[in-house]
């Protein structure tokens, strides 16, 4: 399977739909140890996904993704703006003017995204941040068989597990850090939204 404009559009639309359905839950998780606005921010980024897909004319996939990343940076959502802007925009780092993406190229895109994230944050697995979902997702994608569906399925599975595992971690970053051991038992809102992003991408290629 090759991901063209249609499939990439479906991926972002499906991710937006899943995010929108979960804004309340993300807000509730964030309100426990953060400032409660992660659902609002994720809702804004989801709306941006939809608007950008709607306005996508004929530019190559790389240009579309780069432009989307830059727009997310400016969403005004605290740390989620620069972080998701880098996660999405960073994927364009592996792209020139391709019109279709195969499994190996998709792996390179996820690698490029992770490299961009590493420039921005020192958080790693265990720190109870979105990186607890992102890092295993990219590692699983790298190890997956070559097909795009297998790559996304591996990434989505690992991200979901990574997000679940944050329940057993003590927050080391962001506002939640100040609560220390009280954060045990609650997942990290950013890790949950990252897992939903990969799940949404996977949903997107399953619909035709």
């Amino acid at each position: 399977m090759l991901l063209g404009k249609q499939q990439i559009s479906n991926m972002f639309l499906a991710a937006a739909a899943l995010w929108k359905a979960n804004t309340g839950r993300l807000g509730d998780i964030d309100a426990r140890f953060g400032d409660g606005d992660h659902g609002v921010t994720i809702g804004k980024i989801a709306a941006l996904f939809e608007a950008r897909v709607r306005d996508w004319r004929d530019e190559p996939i790389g240009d579309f993704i780069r432009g989307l990343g830059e727009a997310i940076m400016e969403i005004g959502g605290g740390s989620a703006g620069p972080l998701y802007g880098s996660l999405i925009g960073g994927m364009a780092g592996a792209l020139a003017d391709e019109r279709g993406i195969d499994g190996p190229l998709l792996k390179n895109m996820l690698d490029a995204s992770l490299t961009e994230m590493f420039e921005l944050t020192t958080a790693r697995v265990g720190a109870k941040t979105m990186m607890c979902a992102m890092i295993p997702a990219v590692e699983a994608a790298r190890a997956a068989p070559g097909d795009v569906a297998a790559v996304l399925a591996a990434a989505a599975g690992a991200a979901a597990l990574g997000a679940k595992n944050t329940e057993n971690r003590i927050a080391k970053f962001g506002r939640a850090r100040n609560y220390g051991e009280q954060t045990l038992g609650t997942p990290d809102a950013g890790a949950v939204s990252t897992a939903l992003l990969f799940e949404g991408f996977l949903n997107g290629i399953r619909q035709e």
Partner: protein
Amino acid sequence: MKMKKFINAPENLTKELLEGFAVANGDLVHLEGNRMVVNNKLKGAGRVTIVTQGGAGHEPALSGFVGEGMVDVSVVGDIFAAPGPQACVDAIKLADQGKGVLYVVLNHAGDMLTGNLTMKQVKKEGLQVLKVVTQEDISNAPRSNAEDRRGLVGCIPAYKIAGAAAAKGLSLEEVAALTQRFADNMATLAVAVRGATHPSTGSMLADLGEDEMEVGMGQHGEGGGGRQPMKSADETAAIMLNGLLSDLSIKNGEKIMLILNGTGATTLMELFIIYRRCVELLKEKNIEIVANYVGELLTVQEQAGFQMFMARMDDELLALWNAPCNTPYFKKV
């Protein structure tokens, strides 16, 4: 629970508050783009200019201090959320009048990410910019680990020092060095007794029992350790004052600035009662308050509580603090 706030659609909060703020203070500031509050006298100012950034919902901070002698451009994100880096790069370009820009960033996760991305970009473009980070909350990290300290009300007197240094015609390096010296010698401790509602979501921030207070809370009432039974004004004043004196190692005979910043729902009556006790305690220790402020500078919606701010002062910093300024929410003649 339903919010009792006079708002319209939650997604328009920041836009509407900025519109209102700008027309209410049109003699001093105006809006540019959709998220920049700009000093009306910026254009042609032959001096270093001051740019800052931060979330909304903390009024009058941060944009209430845009004007002559403090901040030239403030970039607003959304409620409690930092703006993006491109907006800050644009603000720095707008602010630059040929003498360079001092960029003041409060230490919060989102603001720091944006601050770092902004500095990367302005360096790439060859702009003359120096960044000062305000990080003075003594409750969430020791002084030796200042990078983990959050930025609270201390950014506001820091703007005053920076703006006055810039108005004197000092170079960017000198303005930055003075601001940094002030920032290195400041400390804040906060206490919360009742939480705030996030105005976009209606969710409660912090959950304190009827007879509890929490010392050390951060900007939004996040927890941080010092939860204890509610105390009297005099007892609370002593706990907080001693925390700050000890963090800054202030000795007998030194001169300080003392600010009591109400965070939204604590009355001026309470703040004056606490301030009075602070003065008595400092007199006993032979420590002189040479600069002060009691009131609301940086709020957190209807959170009840206050931030106590202290800084070590010298004659040079005091002259800068006393220099004239004219902004919507802070004026000196």
